[in-house]
């Protein structure tokens, strides 16, 4: 090599591969208003659909009269359950093995349920006419309390299945019961509790919340009668799943359905499921022969499409008196609303909730979850978490604090004593999960040192004394959380959706001039996939990331995949991308050997080229090899340079982190001021640190919203009282704290590039950290657990109950 040849390090830096804070590719269009979101789509002759919805949470429908609505000039059609029955679509199957009304059939089961769908020439006329659909109701008793759902005289929510004793997941023990799901060893756990030195028990409630992306759910359905083909544009986190489900229920052959998910304005789980609006738009387009757009408004979004959590967790931990945990058990009631439309892996009705033993070395544990029906909206989704992982993390992290308090130990010290040790990995939990890798002590120590934890506790002690002396009305709270996630669903032996294994895919084509395109079965909703997948390819193939186009969201061109949710894109499609690259690289190596007239084994890889071992001047760059692949391949080799990989992960990945929050509570106003929030995340190999940090900021902000103010609240008549931004708390820039981020790196041993996924960690770890901090502020006064959300009113009430207001 002469002096002009850049060094390996210089060439590597130019690729902008793994570890580069590469600026985002997608930003160029977004900052100029040139994104292409679903509501931006306008097709010739397009009509608009809008719903008439139920004002009641539970009522029998005695009459629907659409005459006045249909008579409004501009109205083209009005659909009801009766119309949908003619095409056998009044009900649809759910991902969880239940069925769900598309439009109310005989009765309504939750407020704002879809009753009729009006199709008109513009959105104003559709809205006018929807109001003119006349529906007569006979109100029925309402139940919105999951703890009362299985009472002997509870209102029957689902008359269609009230006599069915078998559900999709086994025996049903009550007409409002959906499933029982258990994990762990009950006998061993009960025995451990029977001889425990110390135990704690607390009802820990994770309220019903909503993912609430800034863009609501929407679609444009366009059916071509001549070709018999349906093109469906929509806000879909999982476009291929929508195509398959769409084909199964509409009977349109799958190859004649084209699903296109353009730019998506945030998803967070909200856009995984199949909703009535999609089905009605498809039917409306088939009926009218022209495209039909459905755009949900915010009230519809918060009250009908998806919810998250709503878990009532009766949690117990046992420990020795010197602070070693010996067992945990948890009995949970899960409120699934009126239909079981949870977007979970099909075999897991309570998701991956058995990650509830968390980061700690529990010798034995047991969980039991009962799912129940109530008069609330259906559609439980994993809101910025892997299925039910955030509920589990919240529960264990709260319970660990409560136990530390009972033992008189410091929250961090108690955790440190019980964390799974580095030498125990790969670690098999009491529930049978094999945690792939971790170095928990290093992470915890780094967090404690970074915030000067001891000094904070000293300050807190002094402030508590001052409070007792009446010198201040503020209480200082320090929240500690150490979480372990289970993401990257998932291994086909464990995970499927309606029988489709949860693999994912990548197809890469390298063009003759050394640029290329990568198509995937995942779908970005803001995660920056167009930027990061290209970085994986850059490092694997030695081609500059700028020369790789990443395309998702078109089911005709992308290989089949299960979509983006549950932090699965990097663990599954990221792995597929690396594996496809390796197939391409293997072929390129053969071409290089042929060109350099050496044996394959005499070549070694150097950043962006194959070179002859011991003779580095003799080399072929990947760009040269791309050209050769289309022009001088070895005899017998087929031309071209492309590969597809369907990756079935051998295991989940287990990201983890240590978070610490410091806040001050004004006991007279209930106001909570977050002083400091430190988040250390270990997501294995880091692809783009800038994007990771951005994801953590965003996830922490969502966690802040959940912990400090969010709840989808229903009154006893089933009216949802928090269905607009007036009532449902979303943090603005003013309330949102400043975030400090940090990391350790413990690669996943089974992932091709060692990456674990990160987008959801801050939500999973953030919520317990905030809640622990608020609870910690009051703990010295004997309070063990204050339920979320910790808004001013609840916090003030907690102070009132403790007699702090004189």
């Amino acid at each position, binding site marked *: 090599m002469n002096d002009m040849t850049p060094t390996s390090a210089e060439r590597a830096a130019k690729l902008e591969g793994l570890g580069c804070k590469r*600026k*985002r590719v*997608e*930003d*160029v*269009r*977004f*900052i*100029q*208003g*040139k*994104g292409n*979101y679903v*509501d*931006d789509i*306008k097709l010739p002759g397009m009509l608009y659909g809008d719903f008439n919805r139920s004002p009641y949470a539970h009522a029998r429908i005695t009459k629907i009269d659409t005459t006045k609505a249909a008579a409004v000039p501009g109205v083209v059609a009005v659909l009801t359950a009766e119309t949908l029955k003619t095409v056998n679509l009044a009900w649809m199957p759910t991902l969880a093995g239940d069925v769900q009304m598309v439009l109310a059939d005989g009765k309504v089961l939750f407020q704002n349920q879809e009753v009729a769908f009006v199709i008109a020439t*513009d*959105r*104003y006329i559709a809205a006018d006419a929807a109001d003119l659909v006349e529906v007569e109701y006979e109100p029925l008793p309402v139940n919105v309390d999951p703890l009362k759902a299985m009472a002997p005289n509870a209102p029957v929510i689902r008359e269609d299945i009230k006599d069915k004793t078998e559900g999709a997941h086994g025996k049903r023990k009550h007409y409002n019961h959906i499933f029982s799901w258990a994990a762990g060893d009950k006998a061993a756990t009960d025995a451990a509790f029977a001889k425990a030195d110390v135990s704690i028990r607390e009802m820990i409630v994770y309220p019903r919340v909503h993912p*609430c*992306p*800034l*863009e*609501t759910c929407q679609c444009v359905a366009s059916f071509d009668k001549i070709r018999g083909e349906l093109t469906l544009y929509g806000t879909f986190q999982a476009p291929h799943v929508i195509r398959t489900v769409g084909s199964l229920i509409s009977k349109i052959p799958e190859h004649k359905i084209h699903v296109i998910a353009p*730019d*998506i*304005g*945030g998803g*967070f789980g909200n856009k995984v499921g199949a909703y009535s609006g999609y089905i009605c738009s498809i039917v409306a387009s088939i009926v009218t022969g022209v495209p039909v757009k459905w*755009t949900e*408004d*915010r009230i519809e979004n918060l009250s009908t499409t998806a919810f998250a959590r709503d878990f009532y967790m009766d949690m117990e931990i046992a420990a020795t008196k010197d602070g070693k945990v010996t067992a945990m058990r948890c009995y949970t009631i899960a409120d699934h609303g009126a239909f079981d439309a949870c977007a979970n892996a099909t075999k897991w009705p309570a998701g991956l909730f058995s990650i509830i033993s968390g980061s700690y070395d529990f010798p034995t544990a047991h969980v039991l979850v009962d799912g129940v029906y109530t008069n609330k909206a259906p559609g439980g989704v994993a809101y910025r978490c892997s299925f039910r992982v955030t509920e589990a993390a919240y529960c264990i992290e709260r319970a660990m604090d409560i136990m530390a308090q009972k033992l008189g130990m410091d929250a961090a010290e108690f955790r440190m004593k019980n964390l799974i040790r580095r030498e125990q990995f790969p670690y098999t939990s009491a529930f049978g999960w094999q945690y792939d890798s971790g170095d928990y002590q290093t992470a915890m120590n780094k967090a404690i040192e970074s915030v000067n934890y001891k000094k904070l506790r000293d300050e807190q002690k002094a402030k508590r004394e001052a409070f007792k002396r009446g010198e201040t009305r503020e209480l200082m709270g320090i929240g500690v959380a150490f979480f372990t996630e289970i993401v990257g669903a998932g291994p086909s032996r464990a995970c499927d959706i309606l029988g489709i294994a949860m693999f994912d895919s990548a197809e890469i084509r390298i063009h003759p001039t050394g640029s290329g395109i990568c198509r995937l079965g995942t779908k970005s*909703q*803001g*995660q*920056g996939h167009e930027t990061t997948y290209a970085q994986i390819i850059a490092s694997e193939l030695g081609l500059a990331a700028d020369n790789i186009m990443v395309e998702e969201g078109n089911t005709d061109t992308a290989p089949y995949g299960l979509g983006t949710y549950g932090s699965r894109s990097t663990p599954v499609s990221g792995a597929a991308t690396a594996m496809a690259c390796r197939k391409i690289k293997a072929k390129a190596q053969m071409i290089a050997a042929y060109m350099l007239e050496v044996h394959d084994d005499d070549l070694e890889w150097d950043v962006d080229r194959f070179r002859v071992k011991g003779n580095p001047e003799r080399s072929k760059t990947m760009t040269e090899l791309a050209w050769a692949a289309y022009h001088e391949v070895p005899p017998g080799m087929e031309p071209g340079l492309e590969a597809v990989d369907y990756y079935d992960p051998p295991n989940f990945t287990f990201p983890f982190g240590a978070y610490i929050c410091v806040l001050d509570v004004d006991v007279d106003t209930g106001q909570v001021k977050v002083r400091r929030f430190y988040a250390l995340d270990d997501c294995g190999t880091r692809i783009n640190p*800038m*994007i990771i*940090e*951005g*994801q953590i*900021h*965003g*996830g*922490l*902000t*969502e966690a802040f919203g959940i912990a400090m103010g969010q709840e989808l609240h229903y009154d006893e008549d089933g009216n949802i009282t928090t269905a*607009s*931004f*007036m009532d449902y708390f*979303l943090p*603005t*820039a*003013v309330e*949102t704290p*400043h*975030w*400090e*981020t940090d990391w350790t790196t413990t690669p996943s041993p089974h992932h091709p590039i060692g990456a674990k996924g990160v987008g959801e960690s801050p939500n999973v770890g953030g919520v317990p950290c905030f809640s622990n901090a608020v609870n910690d502020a009051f703990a010295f006064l004997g309070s063990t657990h204050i339920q979320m959300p910790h808004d001013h009113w609840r916090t003030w009430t907690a102070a009132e109950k403790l007699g702090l207001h004189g």
Partner: protein
Amino acid sequence: MAKSQIAMKVNGKTIDALVEPRTLLIHFLRDDQNITGPHIGCETSHCGACTVDLDGKSVKSCTVFAIQANGGDIRTIEGMANPDGTLHALQEGFREMHGLQCGFCTPGMIVRAYRLLQENKNPSEEEIRYGISGNLCRCTGYQNIVKAIQYAAAKLNGVAFQEAAE
């Protein structure tokens, strides 16, 4: 419904159109004029995704009738680039500082920040946070949006941008 004649300037171009009196400005821009940069996130004027600049003020175009903008001068994200076609300092700042993720709030956020910097050339972090509190973002946690606006302010003021220490 009877339509009314309106005229306004949007991103420097004069538009004459017939609208129903009840047509909201956001629907007029998006559906009638194909100016789809401003978005709809809530229709109750909380989220700010629909923010446009109207006669020197930030307005939420989901709660203004198109007819109220008659005779007005509107700027949307599509009109933010410099006359020579280069990006405005705010657009550049949002990309440089990773001030966006899904991009849905971004057009409203940038147009709002534009007016904020017209009114206060060198805002403090607190003033920026207050100044954009009518615009919700679900992805970024705002911290990088604040930096993006600081970046733009520095560039427009001709001074070097100093990132605050973490």
